[in-house]
């Protein structure tokens, strides 16, 4: 009986094709989401952090902004949405992949015929869903507590759509790239959070854009976060708030350009630097 079985398995092998990356990417995405939502600490931390920061900053700085016809609190809503997108993509991927590498999860996957693209697609599905949930949560608080008006036109939502997708993808790729930097899981959190924290200060998340020195803002402008904040201000704040910007306009064209460039650059960076092995595996 055992021989029959060997024969059938060997015989059927050449006919069966290897499963495709797209389908396995969907399966991995479903698996990643299931794992994510089962880890309660992680869910609470991920979603409550930006909401808590929005509440703190928007409550501390709540005066009217001169000439812009908005309150300082309202400035924080798009800023925190942008930071929330970056935290669910860049921060969570940077830390979680470093840990998966350190704990041999990546090595095990590498030992199977899973195509590498399926792993990254799975991660993108995860950040797409969590990033969207984070945005909805922050927007709900912004509308309910800080009188943010949701845009009425389809054009604004379309703008929001591409800023969200390009920003999230760029940050996710950067997160995947930075996950190769920390030597171990222990150091991953600091390695990932430090640059993210600095970027939040110089990109107009914590500190209003018209208060930050130009040279700092120019450094921030090299990275996606500044442009995500700017674009989301354009979507969720009245036109009168435009005067606060460096150039006095929302600069959608340049935003699209920078974010798209980061998607391409981030992808190249990932392809060049991604490690499946931990350092002790050489």
């Amino acid at each position, binding site marked *: 009986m055992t021989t029959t079985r060997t024969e059938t398995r060997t015989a059927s092998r050449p006919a069966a094709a290897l*499963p495709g990356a797209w389908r396995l990417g969907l399966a991995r995405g479903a698996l990643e989401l299931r794992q994510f939502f089962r880890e309660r600490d992680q869910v609470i931390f991920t979603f409550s952090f930006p909401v808590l920061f929005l509440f703190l900053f928007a409550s501390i700085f709540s005066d009217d902004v001169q000439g812009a016809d908005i309150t300082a609190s309202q400035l924080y809503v798009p800023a925190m949405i942008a930071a929330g997108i970056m935290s669910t993509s860049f921060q969570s991927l940077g830390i979680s992949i470093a840990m998966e590498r350190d704990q041999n999860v990546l*090595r*095990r996957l590498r030992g199977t*015929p899973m195509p590498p693209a399926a792993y990254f697609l799975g991660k993108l599905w995860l950040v797409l869903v969590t990033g969207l949930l984070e945005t909805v949560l922050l927007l709900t608080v912004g509308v309910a507590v800080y009188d943010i008006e949701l845009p009425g036109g389809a054009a604004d939502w379309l703008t929001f759509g591409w800023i969200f997708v390009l920003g999230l993808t760029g940050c996710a790729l950067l997160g995947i790239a930075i996950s190769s930097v920390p030597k171990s899981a222990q150091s991953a959190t600091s390695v990932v959070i430090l640059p993210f924290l600095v970027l939040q200060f110089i990109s107009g998340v914590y500190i209003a854009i018209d208060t930050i020195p130009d040279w700092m803002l120019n450094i921030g402008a090299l990275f996606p976060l500044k442009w995500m904040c700017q674009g989301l201000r354009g979507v969720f704040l009245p036109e009168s708030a435009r005067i606060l910007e460096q150039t006095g306009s929302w600069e959608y064209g340049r935003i699209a350009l920078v974010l798209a460039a980061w998607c391409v650059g981030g992808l190249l960076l990932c392809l060049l630097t991604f490690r499946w092995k931990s350092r002790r595996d050489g």
Partner: protein
Amino acid sequence: MDATTGDTEAAVEVRGLRKRYGDVTAVDGIDLRVGRGEVFGLLGPNGAGKSTTVEILQGHRTRDAGDVRVLGSDPGSAGRELRARIGIVWQDESAPAELTVDETVRHFARYYPSPRDPGEVIGLVGLGEKSGARVKSLSGGQRRRLDVALGIVGGPEVLLLDEPTTGFDPAARRQFWELVAALADEGTTIVLTTHYLEEAEALADRLAVITAGRVAAEGSPAELRRLHSSLATVEWTGHDGRAHSERTGTPTRTVAELSASFDGEIPGLRISRPTLEDIYLGLTGQESAR
């Protein structure tokens, strides 16, 4: 066609394999040939180079020199097609996820073109009752069995096991041996490393004793015993009252000579042939440790 080529082509072929880590030479010129359907044991003390060899077979580690073929392909450069045909059980397990045993095995089955039935595999490794349990709630031994399940769910032609039973209690080890025997019966080629002689003897059709990065001896357990037990040890108590011993290929002559010198009965006479364990310890230079 499979059947004709399958019998002649080796499942694993290694020639002149070398690997250094900095100043340390881990593998110093190893040659191996494992036939299809064979259970091959790499036996040796810790640090002998067994794991490095298997990790090179897995495609997980680069080599400095030598030719390596697994199912006809070089694992160092082979892609998904080869990985779909081999199963790997690593020495150190990976972190438990927030998934159940069933979800994990079912998910890994999806990576393969013609996987085994996940439920059957879970039963085979003895985790049937735990199939709904989260992986993090499993004991160390149960996680190891899950590792084995993930290694075989793709229906591999070659299964590479690195120290599979380290940390098992005796009952679990015996159960694992039965599983390996069952897989071998199905025709799976199995390469395993172990530092338990008992395990190598129970499982392996053939084994290679590895020491200091080289193959010190190779053959079936019976062959090894025959080849290395030509010298018998004759022990007796001498005229001076002290214990003497002599290793000799002609123990009968030694005994005859002793008998003449003692004029009859030889005090404390003992003639012994080495056990497989003696041979192993001798080959690996651990004799003095006993």
